[in-house]
């Protein structure tokens, strides 16, 4: 048997690893989109499929795990997660990648819910176990995008999945001891107590706020990479503001205010941040920072308060933990499914507007007529080559005219055109951010209606 401390660390890593996977591919999606030659709507399913399967299977697997034994469930879950991760990394087609992601989520659901059953034996109390479990999950989910962005740029998008396999196996080794003990004795570490009803309103609010948070993260990454031409590593640095702000928000605990107040304040901050992202006045990275801070602090407040509420006084923990996992990931999946048609339509409309208004700007400019038509065509080709990504348009103006007067005219036109395209790209995301803000505000309804939310 392993010593308790390494085993506790291994269990926390397992939870963090699985829940990081719900967001780790966000920054890799543009790369996968181009590499596998698919559509924006298609590539979204790399993210949606994982969250959807996790949402649908978390509770049934938690029930199964309680019968089979949490040690064995966690060990098998981590092995499946690792194997499916390798399959994801070796995928050369979108269909195979999505199928492997579904299997990965199945293994992940088994591992995460079983760990919640194993943790109390390591830390001495269910309440402390729930806190460690929630913190490990939040840390993983918060770090996921940044780690994914780094790996995508430094190695490849495939490495995001391949690197998970050895980590999952390493985390599974200490769990094997518990599994062997269960197999040898037939005794499982958790009693089969009667399952109480889940906290409906807390779980509903969790789903709604998770949908809004997913919108914030997913859309912001797409805006940064596709709209503002940042590299994955650059976008990873920018979106790291959100988890850093979440760390700050996690310091506002039960000693500051009750769960209901923290949940309501968190939902308001998430909506306010999304509202700010919907109203970005310019295409400038600095302007994304205040909204990210609000979303980050808000998500830490609302997710922890609602998870505490959903688990408080309810047994068995694994089942109710499974409900919180199901609610959060159903929210993420539904949010992405609902937003995808909206923002893909907006991006397509923005592309049409960009081409038309870009050409209008060129034609109305004071440069020579022949040059105007040439520039219009080069702009069209450049937008075509970039497949919807807003391009840097400097190359279409090269070489600049030698005549100083004409050069000034062309440089002025170039800057005006780039500004027009950047603002158009930013504006294309506004309705989706706005919808995310509205969903976040709607979560105030179940939060307000919940009676027993104070711990």
């Amino acid at each position, binding site marked *: 048997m392993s010593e308790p401390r390494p085993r506790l660390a291994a269990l926390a890593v397992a939870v963090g690893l699985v829940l990081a996977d719900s967001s780790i591919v966000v920054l890799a999606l543009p790369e996968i989109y181009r590499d596998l030659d698919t559509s924006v709507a298609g590539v979204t399913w790399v993210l949606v499929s994982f969250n959807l399967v996790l949402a649908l299977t978390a509770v049934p697997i938690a029930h199964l795990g309680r019968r089979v034994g949490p040690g064995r469930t966690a060990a098998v879950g981590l092995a499946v997660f690792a194997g499916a991760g390798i399959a994801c990394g070796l995928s050369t087609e979108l269909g195979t990648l999505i199928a492997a992601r579904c299997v990965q989520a199945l293994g992940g659901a088994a591992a995460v819910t079983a760990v919640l059953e194993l943790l109390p034996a390591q830390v001495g109390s269910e309440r402390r176990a729930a806190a460690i479990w929630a913190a490990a999950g939040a840390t993983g989910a918060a770090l996921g995008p940044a780690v994914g962005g780094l790996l995508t740029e430094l190695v490849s998008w495939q490495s995001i999945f391949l690197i998970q396999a050895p980590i999952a196996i390493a985390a599974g080794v200490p769990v094997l001891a518990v599994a062997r003990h269960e197999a040898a004795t037939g005794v499982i570490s958790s009693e089969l107590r009667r399952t109480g009803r889940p906290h409906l309103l807390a779980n509903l609010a969790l789903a709604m706020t998770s949908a809004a948070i997913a919108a914030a993260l997913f859309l912001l990454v797409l805006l940064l990479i596709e709209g503002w031409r940042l590299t994955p590593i650059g976008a990873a640095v920018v979106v790291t503001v959100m988890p850093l702000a979440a760390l700050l928000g996690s310091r*506002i605990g039960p000693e*500051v*205010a*009750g769960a*209901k*107040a*923290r949940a*309501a*304040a*968190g939902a*308001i*901050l998430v*909506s*306010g*941040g999304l*509202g*700010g992202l*919907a*109203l*970005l*006045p*310019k295409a400038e990275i600095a*302007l994304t920072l*205040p*909204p990210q801070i*609000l979303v980050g602090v*808000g998500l830490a407040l609302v997710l922890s308060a609602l998870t505490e509420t959903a688990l408080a006084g309810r047994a068995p923990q694994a089942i109710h933990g499974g409900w919180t996992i199901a609610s959060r990931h159903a929210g993420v999946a539904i949010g992405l499914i609902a937003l995808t048609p909206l923002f893909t339509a907006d991006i397509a409309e923005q592309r049409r*507007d*960009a*081409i*038309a*208004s*870009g*050409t*209008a*700007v060129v*034609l109305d400019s004071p440069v*020579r*007529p*022949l040059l*105007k*038509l*040439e520039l*219009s*065509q080069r702009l*069209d080709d450049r937008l075509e080559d970039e497949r919807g990504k807003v391009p840097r348009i400097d190359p279409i103006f090269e070489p600049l005219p030698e005549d100083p007067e004409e050069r000034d005219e062309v440089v002025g036109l170039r800057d005006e055109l780039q500004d*027009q395209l950047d*603002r*158009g790209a*930013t*504006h294309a995301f506004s309705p989706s951010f706005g919808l995310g803000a509205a969903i976040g505000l709607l979560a105030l309804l179940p939060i307000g209606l919940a009676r027993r939310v104070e711990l």
Partner: protein
Amino acid sequence: MRAADGDRGWLLIALAAVASLALVGAYLAAGGSDYAPAQVQDPCEPREWRDPGSIEEIAEQFSLSALDGAACELGVTRETLARALATPRARERFLRRYDLSDAELARAIRAGLVRAVDDAERAGALSPLLAGPLRETVRRLPLDQAIPLVKDASGLIDEAQGFLGPAQDLLEEFLP
């Protein structure tokens, strides 16, 4: 103790609301909802000519008027037609997309060129003496000659000057 907890809870909610409203208000004030794509003008609407100072300026506005006229005939925007005429490949793509023949495109471009001559005459940029022969010239142009004229109308002016031959000096007098 419970009352104090409640007060802190309300304070936290109020702080969150103030921070959110301040951010949204600041971004609105900075023009967060002001974006509108550059306007694409209806090509069938008359386009105002700037006071032309040289043959190059007349030629530029002539090109734009010709694009407007042809685009209006075809029921597309001037911007779409401008991109379509830039290269033979773009032209083929355009004809396929709008299910048009070369003859229909040629007819539209000739109509556009006639409108450009009309606009130039109306703006006082071309005298009636020059406008008449120009109108007749463009009405008979084949497609492969009409497209370059839309792109660079100064060639058309030169052609008209050549057409007038000995009346060259007289023509210059009619130019503003």
